[in-house]
């Protein structure tokens, strides 16, 4: 495919995607307005959007949002590189991977919220505890995916780097990282989502501020318009982040035909 048509189709894709999203909202609106679904259980999209607008305009809500975002960001910055590097180190060492891979998997398959009390025990309640729990929620998916990503590194490329005297750190940066990029970027995406959800859960469980606290209240008070608006805002933020990753992805993935 020539470059012109790729660019053209890329922007066409954007329209198609936008159309899909708009169609979903329209379907939602219609379903709710016509009574196809109970409007009490799914308020119309327009109501939710309006509520979201009001929320964003509320300073108190914005404060909650910032708290959550700051925690999410901090956890992200810790969990992603740490998880990727640990995952790589474990997967690349046969001994370590035989010993640790199953253990990582077992921890990964237990619902993380069970551990929330322990985090309160260890960190109290606050920024640090939320960040720690965010890291805990995200790091395992990062490691698991790094295990998978290592499989996609071609042995020949490692061999070339080795014979040229690459140190381990150099090999990581120059061979592992670019080879693993597509899988790892998916992992980053998932890690962000897990991290975000983890922090929301931790905030719903116990918190002073943060949007999870608000979402908890709205849920328990049956305020669906606000609950859905809050979730919408959270989702939009996550999607923006996702798109950011996509930019990186296309920037570094252009060599893939």
């Amino acid at each position, binding site marked *: *495919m020539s470059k012109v048509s790729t660019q053209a*189709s*890329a922007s066409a*894709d954007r329209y*198609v*995607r936008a159309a*899909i999203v708009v169609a979903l909202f329209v379907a939602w609106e219609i379903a709710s307005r016509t009574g196809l*679904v109970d409007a009490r*259980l*799914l308020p119309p999209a327009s109501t939710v959007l309006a509520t979201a607008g009001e929320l964003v305009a509320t300073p108190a809500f914005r404060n909650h949002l910032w708290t959550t975002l700051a925690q999410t960001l901090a956890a992200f910055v810790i969990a992603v590189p740490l998880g990727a590097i640990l995952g790589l180190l474990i997967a*690349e060492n*046969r*001994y370590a991977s*035989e*010993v640790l891979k199953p*253990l990582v*998997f*077992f921890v*990964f*398959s*237990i*619902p*993380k*919220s*069970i551990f929330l009390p322990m985090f309160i*025990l260890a960190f109290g309640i606050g920024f640090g505890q939320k960040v720690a729990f965010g890291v805990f929620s995200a790091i395992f*998916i990062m490691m*698991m995916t790094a*295990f*998978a990503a290592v*499989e*996609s590194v071609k*042995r*020949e490329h*490692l061999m070339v780097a*080795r014979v040229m005297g690459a140190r381990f750190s150099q090999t990581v940066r120059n061979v592992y990282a670019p*080879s693993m990029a597509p*899988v790892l970027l*998916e992992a980053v*995406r*998932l890690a962000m*989502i897990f991290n*975000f*959800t983890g922090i929301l*859960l931790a905030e*719903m469980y116990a918190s002073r501020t943060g949007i999870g606290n608000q*979402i908890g209240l709205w*849920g328990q008070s049956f305020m669906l318009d606000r*609950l859905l608006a809050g*979730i919408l805002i*959270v*989702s939009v933020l*996550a*999607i923006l*982040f*996702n*798109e950011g990753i*996509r930019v990186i992805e296309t920037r570094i*993935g252009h060599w*893939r035909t």
Partner: protein
Amino acid sequence: MRAPTSRETRWLIVAALVVLWEFLPRLGLIPTLFLPPLSMTAVALWTAGPEYLSHLGVTLREVGVALVFACGGGIACGIALGSSARFRKLLLPVVSSAYAIPLVVLYPLFTAWFGIGEPSKVVFAAVYGFLPTLLGAAAGVQTIDRGLIVTARSMGATRVQQIVHVLLPATMPTVLSSLRIGGALVIVGVVVAEMLMSTAGIGFLISRYRTMLDSPKVFAAILLVLALAVVFDLLVQTAERRFLKKGRGDAAAQPQG
């Protein structure tokens, strides 16, 4: 003295964890409310054995059904999407964005729509496990050698044949890792859904006994979740032995590695 084999080391670690689990609470370093000694947990599990077994049956059934959708469907869709540049660029952003919606928070609504019985748990867990599996498989497809697909095409392989005979085996390592991730998430999804609202299942026991501050019974249930993960891991390992060991020349590339 010879170095312990990986299996031995793994058991050593497990043994150490067991000892810690028993003695940290016994020595009063962790309140038993947060972590009851292993022996207490085991006794709780033993005395309530029949109750646990019947609930385990429910969870197993839910996990089983959700696995089919999440892993089977996730891998199939992931490979189909990943193998077409067009669909990948068009749909993956929508798909991964959809995952950014914190489903756990929406679960109460989810049940209002889908009912509160097993189907809603299965749907929730399937959705929870489906996307990471799909994304992982789709990313895995991108890392394979395009030459192999070109070769198969030149031999007249149909789209289905390309997927079955080239994409699937070529991405087998990533596919199996995705399977692991998807499986773990399905387990987590079912248990979390049961914890949130249900009348049966391991998750139900966890949240019930957690509310009643009966930690030994909570951890007994967690032990069962772990057991589920172990069994699932064994299944994946069997698949790995069957599909992976062949045809990979690690030995030649990294003899000392």
